[in-house]
């Protein structure tokens, strides 16, 4: 799994590509924790280029939310559509995770 990382002011945007499954979830989770540990506490995860997320991936997103809160930071998810949206709906994850419609809204939520 590749992850594109960009900066928008103090906000870090992560755009993972491919699958967040039992094989790749741990690596993705560590990437988030590493960012928090170097003081990048405002994170946007854009899921636009993800084909699917399994429960291992959702678990890492829940951990990312918890870890961000512990650092008094902020997490926002965006780019959720099609089959990935369906997976969010099946697990009602939009009630557990901070989901925004667009990248711009996600960045604006950090202010």
């Amino acid at each position: 799994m590749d992850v594109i990382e960009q900066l928008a002011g103090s906000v870090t945007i992560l755009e993972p590509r491919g699958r967040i499954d039992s094989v790749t979830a741990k690596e993705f989770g560590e990437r988030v924790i590493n960012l928090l540990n170097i003081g990048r506490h405002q994170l946007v995860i854009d899921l636009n280029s993800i084909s699917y997320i399994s429960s291992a991936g959702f678990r890492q997103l829940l951990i990312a939310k918890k870890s961000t809160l512990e650092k008094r930071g902020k997490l926002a998810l965006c780019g959720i559509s099609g089959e990935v949206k369906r997976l969010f709906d099946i697990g009602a994850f939009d009630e557990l995770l901070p989901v925004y419609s667009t990248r711009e809204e996600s960045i604006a939520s950090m202010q």
Partner: protein
Amino acid sequence: MTACHVETRIWNRIAEVASVAEIVSEFCAKHDLPEQFLVALGVSLDEALSNIIRYAYGDARDHSILVRLDYEPGSVGATVEDDGRPFDPLSAPALDLTSPTRDRGFGIHFIRHLMDEVRYVRQGGINRLNMRKKIV
């Protein structure tokens, strides 16, 4: 198109699941299946296999797990066979989606919602899980 299947064996290591994801991708492309089948088969197999690899074995030995994908007019199926301890994933209680602290049990919940039919049988020391999705 007539019925056909593809079969592989993996070892009980999480990294091995990546090869199954690739086979699912090739299988869906070969049969020209829409995106929802790639997601249903990919996620369901990831859940079933990771569960077996994490919890099915009480020893540190290598175990081989069989994965079979089959296509027939009207449906596609994924079958997983392992020689781990007996476990019927369908016996797991339904996930309580109203609980704000829910963080476990999403795997079988995904399988139940992504596939149209899930069957489990224990036979000759083998767990066999068959999951099917209709092509409508």
